[in-house]
């Protein structure tokens, strides 16, 4: 493996991050040169130097190996999290070293969990940087490199294979370069549309942009301490429900639907399951809340229930209510949503609904096989026959995913964190959801948790973002041939 080549491409990613740091410093400058200006400017300079240094020595390469592609993706993500801590650390306030690392990882992995008790006290420049981390993370740090560097030739495929979940990759029927353009186009388009709709619904431009960036990255970072509950506006709630639901869809499907192609949203089996789950669970939560007299009218209960369920399924994590106060049935459904999450090919994390559908079909196939031992049973998803490798990877992934949640929960309880908090925080972290229940509920944050638990959760976030095996491979890179 050519480490110098890896460093060169990681360096290019650092330059993109530096550009966003500089943009945040610009916002800080125009906001009466608030207290975040120097921290952001210095961080931009440090990141630029880190990024530019390998470019001085290493020349452009036409070909990359799979191993090098993998190292670029994982290295860029980890280093992005490291440089993301710089402005927080230099600015100070609530950001200790652990807190700054947690906030940065939470941003770049689009988790949206926070350690901040008073978000509104942050200067605007730093708030924008916080949103930028999540937006950059949303599309994938390396995706930027793929789109913006047309000189990379066949390198694209190597990187994309690692960046996209294998299930997501199957749904794209275009060349890699086109895939990247589609992703970026849908992402930017969705952000712009969400921003305009949020502005029309009553937010100011800064909040509209910030929340649009957050919703499209399926992160859940907000500029307000009370998250979306601060705005207390049904119009904003509905705009966000639609924006979140759209952000949880396969980006290729959105593209196909908008451009009128055949394999569009209305023909997708996964999309039918996805919307069916959102509506059904949202409705059941609403019935449960209304029956328990939590809300005076069913329409309000439906809006609140749907908002919260969509927010957790899509791993956005915005909040309009304190879900700790909801019924046990509603909490169980919300936990289910946090586990399953949205569609592959979106920026959301979690198990992905595609794996849930395949698991159910595998159970059905197993039952049929027992009844008809000689039958050849094929499992299809969206009309495509799934090969043995794809099917084999589903239970392996689910078991590893659940095992990591178990380890996270046990570790939390070892540190004297209560079971509900420990369990839901582990689910929320590995699924890149953000809020959980207990001490990390929708109206709380991770600030009061032990430092070691914050670190373990930030590791879970990275596992979740890199589809578990992406990060595990890093520890076995020496044996990779």
């Amino acid at each position: 493996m050519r480490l110098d080549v890896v460093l060169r491409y990681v360096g290019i990613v650092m330059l993109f991050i530096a550009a966003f740091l500089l943009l945040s410093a610009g916002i800080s400058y125009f906001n009466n040169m608030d207290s975040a200006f120097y921290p952001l400017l210095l961080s931009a300079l440090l990141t630029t130097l880190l990024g530019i240094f390998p470019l001085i020595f290493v020349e452009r390469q036409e070909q990359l190996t799979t191993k090098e592609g993998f190292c670029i993706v994982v290295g860029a993500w980890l280093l992005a999290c490291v440089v993301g801590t710089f402005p927080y650390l230099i600015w100070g306030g609530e950001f200790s070293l652990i807190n700054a690392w947690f906030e940065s990882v939470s941003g770049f992995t689009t988790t949206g969990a926070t350690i901040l008790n008073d978000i509104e006290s942050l200067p605007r420049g730093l708030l924008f940087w916080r949103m930028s981390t999540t937006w950059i993370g949303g599309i994938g740090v390396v995706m930027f490199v793929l789109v913006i560097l047309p000189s990379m030739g066949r390198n694209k495929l190597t990187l994309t294979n690692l960046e996209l979940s294998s299930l997501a990759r199957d749904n794209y029927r275009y060349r890699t370069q086109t895939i990247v353009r589609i992703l970026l186009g849908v992402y930017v388009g969705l952000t712009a549309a969400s921003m305009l709709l949020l502005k029309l619904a009553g937010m100011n431009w800064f909040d509209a942009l910030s929340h649009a960036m957050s919703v499209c990255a399926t992160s859940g970072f907000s500029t307000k301490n009370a998250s979306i509950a601060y705005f207390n506006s049904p119009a904003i709630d509905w705009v966000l429900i639609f924006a979140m639901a759209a952000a949880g869809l396969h980006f290729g499907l959105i593209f196909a639907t908008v451009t009128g192609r055949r394999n569009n949203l209305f023909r997708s089996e996964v999309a039918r399951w996805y919307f069916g789950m959102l509506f059904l669970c949202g409705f059941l939560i609403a019935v449960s809340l209304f029956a328990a007299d939590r809300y005076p009218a069913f329409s309000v209960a439906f809006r609140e229930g749907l908002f919260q369920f969509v927010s957790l399924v899509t791993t956005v994590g915005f909040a309009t209510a304190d879900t700790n106060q909801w019924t046990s049935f509603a909490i169980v459904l919300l936990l289910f949503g946090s586990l399953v999450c949205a569609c592959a090919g979106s920026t959301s994390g979690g198990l992905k609904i595609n794996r849930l559908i395949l698991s159910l079909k595998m159970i059905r196939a197993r039952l049929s096989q027992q009844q008809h031992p000689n039958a050849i049973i094929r499992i299809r998803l969206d009309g495509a026959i799934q090969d043995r490798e794809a099917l084999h990877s589903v239970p392996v992934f689910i078991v590893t995913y659940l095992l990591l949640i178990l380890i996270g929960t046990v570790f939390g309880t070892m540190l004297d964190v209560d079971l509900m908090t420990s369990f839901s925080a582990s689910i929320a972290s590995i699924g890149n959801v953000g809020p959980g229940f207990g001490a990390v509920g929708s109206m709380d944050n991770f600030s009061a948790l032990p430092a070691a638990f914050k670190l373990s959760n930030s590791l879970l976030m990275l596992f979740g973002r890199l589809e578990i095996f992406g990060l595990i491979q890093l520890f076995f890179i020496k044996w990779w041939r």
Partner: protein
Amino acid sequence: MTGLHKRVTVGFLSIVCLLFFSGMVSFLELSHLSRDTGDILEANRRNISLAKEMLDAAHEQNVALIHYSVFGDRSYDSLCRASLLRLENTLSIAQQEAVDKSFLDSLAFATTELRLLTDSYLAFGGVEPHVEPDSVAVDRSETAGSRWYNDEYEALYVRLTAAIKNYMTSTQSSLAPRAEQMKKNAYRAVTPVLTSLVVMIAIVLMLYYFMSIYCVHPIVRMNKGLGDFLTFRIPFAVKGELKDEVLELKEKIDTLIALSKQTQF
């Protein structure tokens, strides 16, 4: 500037830039820190000085009034008025300079009360307005003066000095937010240097790595190969990616070896 030279120069310039900018930010924050420290010390000194001036004036006025009322020494009239004026002037300065004027409200009220009481007492020549002087005025006025001092003045005097002390402690506690800001500035002066140090270590490690793979290793290999060639006459080829002057050197050595072969045959 040639390739290798240019790369090394740019690499070192990057480190210099890094040090310069982190130093500048630290310098700026340290300047803020220094200015805030100076401001806090100055505010502290000024507060103590004003409070001392007010306490001195109040004490002087108290002594003068004791002489005037208890001992009947009318020459203390002017000193009494002058002390009170000094107290009021100092209070006025404190009010002008104070950031939070609420700390001075009770003090201003106590001073006004004292001024009204003293003025009314002095206006009647040391005799209470409602007391009629008679033939044994001296003895009775002395008794009345002591009684007036004990009953009416002393309580106000105690209240005034308490208000001055309260002003002193309150303004000291109002410096806490500024001290907190100072702590933040101190933190911000240190973290840029620490962060830059981490980045610099990363850059130096990268520089070491690049110099190793692009300069040191090829030169070591060429040196070994040349040594073997000179000893055993075995031609050699340097593997790996070579750049700039190192590549030129390798090509020249190849040419030399080729020339050497030609001369042999």
